[in-house]
């Protein structure tokens, strides 16, 4: 019922609609209250809203001074992060935008002295590994060494796809739609012609535009790796109604036949999970319209078995691979994902089943989880015990955590839009994407 629910319920759609017409401060407050009221939730919606908002913030600020822009973005970012500290993607996007501004400012300065040197750089793909190519090179060795020694997935290492292999052999991967290799860092090199009086603001806006594009394409980019990881006749276990996972499986299903066991993730996500499995329209405003028309796996002839969460351990012995979506990924390789993920990951560990996490790079947070209790959000207790049961409500404390923290050692592989990475390697991607100065905004 888009006709009635559209104007009624505030959410991402209404926010984006009003963003253009409202003054910028209104939009900031608006997003803050939407985040607080949880009317915008899910990582992607939060990230998209943040990116659009920051784009408006920057286009509204009439200055070309990088420091002022940084201050402004920091101020807005702090408020947004305070509004919903557990949506870590908000902070991630803010940090990336700050990084963009800093890059532009530095380029501006470098450009003054050193145009020719910068121009001579032939493959300037990684945003910040450039300054010292040897460093990047050694890192690459280190990375591949680790991959070899850990050897978590024999099947996978046969065709190791890490970011650096991707960078060094870009040809086969370039067929992917809008690979971030070309997306994230390239915009700034367009600035040559402008010389010293380069328009930082315009460059940053371009950069944010690319982040927004990335957010739109990230699932498809991840899905492009599906055929490398899912093989015929495998039994895959997954959890929640994550669209990233669904697209990943769908992509593989187009070519291969396999079996999916889907844990229903009661009580917070079971309805959406059921809808995903059965292909019913989930009625979820947060999802963009194209995704809600997605075909279910069963339409492609894949056997999908829906199981209660409690049966995960019993079935784990038959599972070849566990594929999980996530809420956010932390710098130490651990992750915060829908409640129940940790149980699955542990069960997989016991049975030595490989655990693969699919996640966009935008979910990767530079936050190191010293106190992971604080990262977990507690939801509505009535989903666990019905509120009608007055005697019970009166006497017991009911807790309904929405998320689980899964430590890095339970994860075998991350697949991001940049490729597959070992958990221990994520720190490198963090340092690629975020500036040291911005880790604490």
């Amino acid at each position, binding site marked *: *019922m888009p*006709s*009635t*629910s*559209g*104007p*009624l*319920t*505030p959410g991402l759609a209404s926010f984006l609609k009003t963003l253009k017409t*409202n*003054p910028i*401060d*209104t*939009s*900031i*407050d*608006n997003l803050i*209250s939407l985040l*607080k*009221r*949880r*009317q915008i939730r899910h990582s992607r919606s939060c990230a998209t809203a943040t990116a659009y908002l920051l784009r408006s913030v920057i286009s509204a600020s009439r200055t070309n001074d990088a420091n002022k822009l940084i201050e402004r973005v920091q101020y807005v970012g702090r408020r947004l992060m*305070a*509004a919903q500290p557990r949506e870590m993607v908000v902070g991630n996007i803010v940090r990336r935008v700050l990084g963009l501004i800093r890059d532009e400012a530095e380029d501006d300065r470098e450009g003054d002295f050193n145009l020719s040197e910068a121009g001579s750089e032939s493959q300037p793909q990684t945003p910040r590994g450039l300054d010292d190519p040897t460093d990047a090179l050694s890192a690459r060795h280190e990375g591949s060494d680790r991959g070899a020694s850990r050897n978590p997935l024999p099947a996978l290492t046969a065709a190791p796809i890490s970011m650096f292999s991707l960078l060094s052999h870009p040809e086969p991967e370039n067929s992917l739609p809008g690979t971030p290799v070309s997306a994230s860092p390239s915009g700034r090199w367009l600035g040559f012609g402008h010389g010293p009086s380069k328009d930082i603001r315009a460059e940053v806006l371009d950069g944010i535009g690319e982040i927004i594009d990335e957010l739109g394409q990230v699932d498809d980019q991840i899905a492009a790796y599906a055929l490398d990881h899912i093989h015929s006749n495998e039994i895959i276990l997954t959890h929640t109604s994550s669209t990233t996972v669904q697209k990943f499986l769908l992509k593989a299903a187009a070519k291969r036949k396999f079996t999916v066991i889907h844990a229903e993730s009661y009580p917070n996500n079971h309805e959406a999970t059921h809808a995903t499995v059965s292909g019913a329209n989930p009625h979820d405003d947060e999802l963009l319209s194209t995704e809600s028309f997605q075909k279910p796996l069963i339409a492609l002839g894949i056997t999908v078995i829906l199981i209660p969460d409690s049966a995960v351990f019993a079935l784990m012995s038959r599972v070849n691979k566990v594929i999980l979506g996530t809420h956010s990924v932390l710098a130490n390789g651990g992750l915060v994902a829908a409640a129940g993920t940790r149980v699955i990951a542990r069960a997989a560990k016991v049975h030595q089943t490989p655990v693969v996490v699919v996640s966009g790079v935008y979910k990767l947070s530079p936050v190191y989880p010293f106190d992971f*209790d*604080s990262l977990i959000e*507690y*939801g*509505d*207790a*009535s*989903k666990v015990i*019905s*509120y*009608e*049961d*007055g*005697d019970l*409500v*009166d006497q017991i*404390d*009911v*807790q*309904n955590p929405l998320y689980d923290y899964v430590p890095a050692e339970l994860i075998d592989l991350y697949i991001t839009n940049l490729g597959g990475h070992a958990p221990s390697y994520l720190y490198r991607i963090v340092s690629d994407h975020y500036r040291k100065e911005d880790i604490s905004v």
Partner: protein
Amino acid sequence: MGPKKGGAPKQRGNATETVEETLQAVVLADTFETRFEPFTLERPRCLLPLANTPLIEYTLEFLANAGVEDVFLYGGAHSDQLERYINASKWRAPSSPFKQLTFLKSTSTSVGDVMRDLDGKHLITGDFIVVSGDVISNLPIEGALAKHRARREADKNAIMTMILREAGRNHRTKASSVSPVFVIDPTKDRCLHYEEIDQHNPDSTRLNIEAELITSHQEIDLRQDLIDCNIDICTPDVLSLWSDSFDYQAPRKQFLFGVLKDYELNGKTIHTHIIKDHYAARVRNLKAYDAVSKDIISRWTYPLCPDTNLLPGHNYELRKGSLYQEQGVTLARSCVIGRRTVIGQGTSIGDKTTVKDTVLGRDCKIGKNVTLEGAYIWDGAVIGDGTTVKQAIVADRAVVGKNCTVEAGALISFGVEIADGVNVSEGLRITKAPREEDDGVPTSEPEVVGEGGTGYEYVPYEDEDEDDTASNASSGLVYNMAHLSLSSDSISTLSSEISDFGGSRSGSFSTTMSDDEESDHFVHDAAASVYDSLRDAVTSDVVQLELVSLRMTANASDHQVRRAVVSAFMKRVAQLMEGGKGAGDAVREIFGKYREIVERSLFDREREAKPDQVDLLLLIQQDLVHRSRGDTVLLFTAKELYDLEIIDEEAYEQWWDDERSSSTEEMRQVRSQTQQFVDWLANAEEEESSEEEESEEDDE
């Protein structure tokens, strides 16, 4: 799924219409109840903090969630405070989700008045939501709204949808003393009958359901397990219905009951939307305050929890064990903070203090060795060393000394200071708000607050139990009329006088009438309404009309009508005299202008015995016993009634001879001055009769 599918095409059909229609909401910031006294003496109820956030924030948040764009906020008591608060809040900022937030002040004394006022203002253009300013809910309202619209589309007479939350038989959030019973036709979600059952009153434990309801409906649900959270989706017809029935005051007990009863007459139907998930509750009394606070802390109301930080500037974080703590809290090393606790910024807690199930506001100072259990300590309160507070409320800036004990149910209002070593006993209410009777600074009662403390025990007009308004909640009076904001000439004082009157009278008149509760209602309501009209100088026709309609609804006897009229008249007379008028002038003014009303309550003009007139005189006499200069007023009243030919000479005689009029010392004293008038009457009569005799003689 079934009904939804049916509704969907219709929705799409009138999509263009619904999109243009902005959703409006009316917030009743004052619910015209006294449940939160003594706190509400100084602060509007919807600004009382619930888990450190003012109540109204939750309600507005709910409306914002529901996508409401126009909000009309009706302030009642202390509306200036509320207005100040709203104007400074984020709801007035340009980023407010409301396109329009209108603050309406009114002199209303009931929900009914507010609705009629709203109808007069013509502000409502389409469907609107009515909520009271103390609703806490995380319910997305679209479902109910869509159903309501579909129903209205199908049938213009479906005027209202009530949202009810299902809850078990015993539930902490349910009202415990008065339980509403809904009779519902589950096939159409239609509410057929509504009644409130008062568990403390044995008379009202029966439901009266018309036999026709049972015969004419296939299926009937009788439900007592519903939390009525007073969220109503209404069509503009509701307002006109309120206006039509001008004596309705309460939204449920009278309006809902009345509309359902008059279904045959007006054909309007009221529907229910029963929800099984999501949270919806009202902070209707202190017991509910406690229950809802617990619900919020246990996250049943998610996302409306302290760590959502609804107010800008709040920065609560959730720690293990439902402990919400703001930054800048000073905790002594040896203090023990138990589960389910909220601690605001700037609060310090001393050594070896135990805190459990407690909400602490900002900048509180809790001493050493203090025990807090189930307590609600509002901003800036100070608790001295060694004190124990259990299940009590300590309001803003109140000070509790050292080694005190505050027992369960005690309410310590704003700024009260309790000296060291005092034991505040169970259910005690202490305030230092100016009393209504004496305008000056209230004197402290050392026996309550100890030597050097400030504050006195607050005694509500109606004897209310702690935390729970118990039997009074059902009496309708507390619910409708007793209203805090009224000043010295308030209805509350009037009603209490009437009840005094009723009490003493029933001693002396025990034979003449049965003094059941129903009649008291009527007398209260009618007296209040007549008195209002007199004060506002409404014409006697209107007063008469209102009185008659009240009489009809309550099926009151003539005696009750007279009682109501007399107490209203006398009250007005007394007030005029206070204003500097002479007794004679005052009496003449009132009785002259409203002669008809008195006249119409008497039906014995043609008969020999004059019981009605005697009754009236007795009532007047009785009423004046308690008033200053009652004797003088009685004299003038008697004379005026005679001059206006309302009361005949015979009636005066009968009254004078009636033993009831001289039964007590007070009664005799009041009528002492009237002696001369009666003597004069007797003389005149004698003369008359002798004249007659003479004329007869002449004839012969």
